[in-house]
C-alpha cells in the first residue's frame, strides 16, 4: 500500500494546497466589489473541459496506483512465480510512443491551423493506437498459446488485468479521437477541433506514461 499512499498523498497534497492557497490571509466577511483579477478568485485559467480531464486523470492515477500496490502486496505471497513477458510488448511500447508523437505533432499542427496536417496526424495516431491494441491482443494470444491463462498464476492474472484496464482507457480515448477525426474529415475548421485535439494529446501522453510505468513494473518483477 505504500505506493498508493505516496501517490494519493501527493494528489491530496496538491488538492489541499490548491484549495488552501486562496483561503489564506482572506477575511471573507469584508464586503468587496468583484475582484478585478479573475485568477485571484481561485479559478484556473483553463476551459472547464481541460480541468475536467485533469480531474479524471487524477482518478485514473488513483486507480492504477492502487493496482500497482495490490500487485506489490500480492507479490509478497509465497506462490508468486515470475511471468515471462512476451517480446512483442517492446514493439507495442514503441508503437504507443509513436502514437503519442503523432498526437503531439497533430496538436502543433492544430495550433498552426494546418488542417491537412491535423487530418494526417490524427489518422496516424489512430493507426498507431489501433496497432498498439492489436499488439496487446497478440501478446495475450502468445501467453495463451504458451499455456498462461488468467487463472494459471497471479502474475499472469495481473498481467491480463493491468493490460486490459489500460487498453479500456485507450479505447475510451479512441471514442473521443473518433468523434474528432470524423469532424475533421467532414471539413470542420481547425478552431473548432483544436480543444479536442489538445485533450486527446494530453490523454494519450498520460496513457503512454501509465503504460511505461506498468511496463517498468512488469519488467522489474519478471524473471
Amino acid at each position: 500500500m505504500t505506493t498508493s499512499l505516496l501517490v494519493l498523498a501527493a494528489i491530496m497534497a496538491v488538492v489541499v494546497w490548491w484549495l488552501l492557497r486562496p483561503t489564506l490571509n482572506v477575511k471573507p466577511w469584508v464586503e468587496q466589489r468583484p475582484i478585478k483579477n479573475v485568477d485571484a478568485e481561485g479559478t484556473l485559467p483553463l476551459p472547464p473541459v481541460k480541468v475536467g480531464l485533469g480531474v479524471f486523470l487524477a482518478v485514473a492515477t488513483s486507480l492504477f496506483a492502487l493496482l500497482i500496490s495490490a500487485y506489490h502486496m500480492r507479490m509478497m505471497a509465497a506462490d508468486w512465480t515470475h511471468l515471462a513477458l512476451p517480446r512483442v510488448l517492446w514493439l507495442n511500447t514503441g508503437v504507443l510512443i509513436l502514437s503519442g508523437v503523432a498526437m503531439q505533432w497533430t496538436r502543433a499542427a492544430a495550433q498552426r491551423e494546418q488542417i491537412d496536417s491535423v487530418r494526417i496526424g490524427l489518422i496516424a495516431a489512430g493507426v498507431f493506437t489501433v496497432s498498439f491494441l492489436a499488439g496487446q491482443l497478440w501478446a495475450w494470444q502468445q501467453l495463451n498459446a504458451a499455456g498462461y491463462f488468467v487463472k494459471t498464476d497471479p502474475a499472469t492474472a495481473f498481467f491480463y488485468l493491468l493490460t486490459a484496464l489500460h487498453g479500456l482507457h485507450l479505447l475510451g480515448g479512441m471514442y473521443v479521437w473518433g468523434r474528432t477525426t470524423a469532424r475533421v474529415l467532414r471539413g470542420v475548421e481547425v478552431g473548432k477541433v483544436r480543444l479536442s485535439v489538445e485533450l486527446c494529446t494530453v490523454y494519450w501522453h498520460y496513457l503512454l506514461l501509465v503504460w511505461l510505468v506498468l511496463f517498468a513494473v512488469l519488467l522489474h518483477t519478471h524473471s
Partner: protein
Amino acid sequence: MSSVAFDESPHVPPAEVPEVELYHPKTFIGRYIWSQDAKVIAVQYAITAISVGVVALVLSGLMRLQLGFPHTFSFITPANYLQFVTMHGMIMVIYLLTALFLGGFGNYLIPLMVGARDMVFPYVNMVSYWVYLFAVLLLMASFFVPGGPTGAGWTLYPPQAILGGTPGANWGIILMLVSLAFFIIGFTMGGLNYVVTVLQARTRGMTMMRLPLTVWGILMATILALLAFPALFVSAIMMILDQALGTSFFMPALVSKGQHLAYNGGSPILFQHLFWFFGHPEVYIVALPAFGIVSDLISVNARRNIFGYRMMVWAILAIGGLSFMVWAHHMYVSGMNPYFGFFFATTTLVIAIPTALKVYNWVLTLWRGDIHLTVPMLFAIGFVFTFINGGLTGLFLGNVPVDIPLSGTMFVVAHFHMVMAVSPILVVFGAIYHWYPKVTGRMLNDTLGKFHFWVTFLGTYAIYYPMHYLGFLGVPRRYFAMGNTVFIPPSAQSLNVAITIAALIVGAIQVVFLYNLIWSYFKGKPSGPNPWRATTLEWQTPHTPPKHGNFGPTLPVVYRWAYDYSVPGAAEDFIPQDQPPGRKAPGLEEAPDASELGPQKPGALVT
C-alpha cells in the same frame, strides 16, 4: 439581452456564459426524463435514492424483528438475515447516502449556490444519473436471482463472499460487484461535474472563501470519492475474476466444506486494505456534505454568521487530507502487521481534532445568536447532539487497545449508526425541510415536520445509545440469534425487544415524512422566493422554483460572503450575497453598472 461575444481567451469569467448556451428542451420527456438540467437530475437522484432507501429501511425492520423476537418468524432464516444485513448496509451507505448527498444535494445546490447556470458538462451529468439508476436496478435484481442477494456483509470480505457457506455466493455477489462498478462509473461522471463546476463556473465575485460551507463540504466529499472509489472498483473487479474465472487475487489455498479448492496464495488482507482504503474516506464522503449543510442550516436559523468560517474550511481540508491515512483502524483485529496499530491509532485520534473544532463552532454559532427553532433547525441541533455522541464513541474504536474488546460487537454497530447513519440522515431531513420550498415553491407542513423530528430524534437515540452497552457486554454483531451463553443475562434480550420496538416506531413514522412530501407538493403553503431569509444565491433566483438556467438573463454578481447575518448597521438581519455594498436594504434589484465591475479583460463583456 444584449449580444455576447465569446472570448477566445480561456479566462472567460463565468458571468459571461450566455443564457442561450443551454439547450432548453421542449417536450415533457426532454424536460423531466432525459433532462440535462442539474435540478431535475438532482430530483431524479433524490427520488431513486429515497426509494431504494425505503427498501433498506424495511430490511432493517426485518433484522430488528429477528433480533427482538428470535425464532418467531419462519420466513427469516440465518441466510436471509445475513442478506438483510448486507443489503441494508450497502444500500444505505452507497446507494442512499452517497447518491443523495452528492447526486441529489450536490446537483441541486452547487450550480445555484456558486451562481452558475448549470453543471459544466450537463450531458455527462445526465448520463451519470442513468448509470446510477442502472446500478440500482442491478442491485435490486439480485433479490430475484437463484440464491438471492449476497449475504457477505457490506464489507464483502473474501474468501467467504464467494464461497458456498455464504448466501448469494454465486449470482448475488456478482450482481453486487457489477452494480458497484457501475455505480462508481456513474459517480465519477457526476463527480467530475461537481468539482469542475465549483472550481471553474463560479460567478463573478464568488471567491472560494465566499462559498457557503455546503459547497465546501460537497466539494471535498466529491474529491475524496473520486480518489477513493477506484479502490473499491479495483477490488470489485479482482473479486469478480476470483469468483468467475478462478484467479487467486484474494483467495488463499483453502478447504471449503471438506473440498480442496483450486485457489492458492491469495491474500484476504489485501482485499481488506483495498476495501477500507475506500471505506474510510467513504465515511467522510457521507459526513462532509452533512457537515457543510448543517453549518448553513444553523447559521441561517441562528441569524448569525457561522462561527470561525475560515477554521471550518480548514477543518474540512484537514479532514479530507487525513481521511486517506486512517483506513486501517478498521483492521486492528484483522491479523495485519500489528505495528501498523501505532500509526493508525495516532492518525485516527488526530483527525478528531478538526472534527471537534467543527462541533465547537456549530455550538458557538448558536451562542449569542437569535435562534429560530424551525424544523430544519431542530434537525440541525438534533444532528449536533447525535454527532457528538457518535463522534465520541469513535474515540473508543479509534484507540487501538480499546478497539480490541469492542470490535465485532454491537458497540461498533451502535457507533457507526450514530455517526454515519442517524447523523447524516437527520441532516438529510433538515436539508429537505430547508430546500423543499426552493424545489417546489411550497413549504412542508410544519406540524408534521415537528412530529417527524421528535419521533426520529428521540427514537434513534433510544435505539442506538443502549446498543453500545450490549457491545460492552460482548454481544457480537451480525448474529442471527444470541443462543445460550453463560454471561449474557436475559435482561439483554429485554433490551433487544425495546430497541426493536423503538426501531419499528421510527421506521413506521417515516411514512409521515413521505406523506408530507407528497401532500405539501400540492397543498403546501406557498413559500415565496426566500422563506428563511437566507443570504446564499439559491434564494435570490428570479423564479421559484428556478427555471432552467437558474438566474434569468444575467448571472448574479457576488459582493460578500454567505454569512452576512445580523450585520451591525444593516436594516435587515441578513444581506444577500449579491447585494452590492452601500445599500442598506435588501430586495432592491438593480443591475450593477459595468463601471462597478472594474476594468475588464478586453472583449470580456460586451454590452
